[in-house]
């Protein structure tokens, strides 16, 4: 397998993706909502209208399950400050799982199943490029932008949160901290890889981009479960949780990538699902 050939596929797919607004739109707007719009609402609405009692009740169970050192950190804070602190540092974390999984599945759907839609697969498969080179090139074009978008989203999120914290907590900067850095650099790449692995398997069995996208939406379900579990106080975003996620996603990746590589054969791509 030649890396130059994989990079050739990567550059070709990247040129296509960068000119496809249907693919770019969700990759730009979803992170924008999670990293800027929602945090801004969280930060500024309580200061404008005051923290409603209901919102404090909402995070009540989560607050109960916070580690003692966090409880100690918010002990002297008022309701508004507590909400901003807890939401910014804990509640929003699972959204950073949605960004890489959404981006990688959109990109992988376009790269793998999209070639079926556009009827370009046959001529690509007629070239001497090997299966491994095609798979690596297409995985790279799904992985690299998703992870860059995730890291960029984290940088923007840090700016927004720190802007609020400087104003609310007397110049204190909340992010980045060690927990979030471990989470962003340790967990999100594994999540992006899992999204790609599942989408590769799905793409082998579907007719085109839309079908692949619809089926890949199932990837969001475990993330939503995490969010609800966190709000319900069943789990808390902490070091143990992050290490657990690294372990689980490493295992999931090993399985889905093994299955994806095993079944990624040119003939399967062309003849199945079509």
């Amino acid at each position, binding site marked *: 397998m030649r890396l130059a050939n994989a990079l050739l596929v990567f550059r*070709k797919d990247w040129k296509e993706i960068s000119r496809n607004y249907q693919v770019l739109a969700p990759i730009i707007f979803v992170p924008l909502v999670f990293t800027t719009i929602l945090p801004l609402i969280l930060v500024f609405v309580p200061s404008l209208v005051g923290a409603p009692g209901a919102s404090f009740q909402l995070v009540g169970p989560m607050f109960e399950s916070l580690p003692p050192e966090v409880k100690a950190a918010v002990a002297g804070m008022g309701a508004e400050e507590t909400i901003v602190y807890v939401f910014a540092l804990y509640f929003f974390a699972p959204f950073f799982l949605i960004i890489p999984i959404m981006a990688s599945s959109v990109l992988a759907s376009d790269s793998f199943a999209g070639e079926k839609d556009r*009827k370009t697969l046959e001529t*690509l498969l007629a070239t*001497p490029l090997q299966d491994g080179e095609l798979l690596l090139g297409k995985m790279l074009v799904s992985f690299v932008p998703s992870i860059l978008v995730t890291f960029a989203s984290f940088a923007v999120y840090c700016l927004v949160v720190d802007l609020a914290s400087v104003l609310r907590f007397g110049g204190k900067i909340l992010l980045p901290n060690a927990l979030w850095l471990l989470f962003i650099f340790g967990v999100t790449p594994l999540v992006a890889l899992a999204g790609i692995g599942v989408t590769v398997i799905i793409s082998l069995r579907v007719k085109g981009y839309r079908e692949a996208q619809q089926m890949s939406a199932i990837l969001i379900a475990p993330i939503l479960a995490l969010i609800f579990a966190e709000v319900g106080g069943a789990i808390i975003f902490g070091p143990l949780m992050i290490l657990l996620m690294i372990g689980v996603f490493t295992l999931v990746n090993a399985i889905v990538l093994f299955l994806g590589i095993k079944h990624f054969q040119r*003939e399967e791509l062309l003849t199945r699902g079509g």
Partner: protein
Amino acid sequence: MEAIVAHDLTKKFNSFTAVDRLSLEVREGEVFGLLGPNGAGKTTTIRMLACIISPTSGSAQIHGKDIIGEPAAVRGMVGVQTESPSLYERLTATENLEFFAKAYGIRDPGEIRSRTRELLEFFDLWERRCERVAAFSKGMKQKLAIARAIIHDPPVLFLDEPTSGLDPESSKLIRDLIVKLSRMERRTILISTHRLEDAERICNKVGIILRGGLKVSGAPEELRSRIAGEAKVEVRLLGSASDYIRSVEGAPGVSGVDVNGSNLIISTWDPALTTPDIVRRVVEDGGKVLSVRPFLPSLEEAYLKIVEGMRG
């Protein structure tokens, strides 16, 4: 030397047999036309020979390289133009050709540039080289797809409906290119087509494929005389033609004579040989000949006869 050899090539998709024990041989420099109705197995045959899909059974070699044992080597030496243009529509014409040049192993940027320019100029696309392919007409896409198929200068070409969607001028350009590639550059070309007039003009050999099997193959003229039957010569006379039946009956090469008003319709296997003798006999018996027209059976007639015969 045989450039393409297929022996008992078979492709099954579950219980459906798309290609059934197809055997063919195409010599180097020949243009072989694969004719057949939709769903007959033409595209599947091309896909197998181009190593895009593997056969269920049987074997084939392209310039001696086995399609099962050495698929990468075979892919490198064949150019494929698929049924749809299969171009990256968000890329420009130049970007499409450059990608495929590199994918086929051309590494020298200078060579890629010069080959790209040569092909875009030949197909009259140079002025549009920086435009995205999505903005191209169907004919322009078809021309670019053929340019892509020959970007790496392959010795063997598989063209699936190469003149489909083209205007007469562009069709002629493609036909002339195919003839040039085969006769002057000794490239072997396998064409799948519905356009029998194209096959008749450019193919050295044609094969008719039906329900996955190659039913008959040979030179176009051989097929049309073998299957569609004899040629006819129509002699138009001044006055009644029935007076001259006896003049031509029994002439060498004549197998039958009919009359239609002032026209004598003569059946013959070889109109070039028999027509001068027929005219001489009629004139010697006092006939006034107004015109003489030979009617050769077309490849289309041969094709339809086989297809209808197979359908029962």
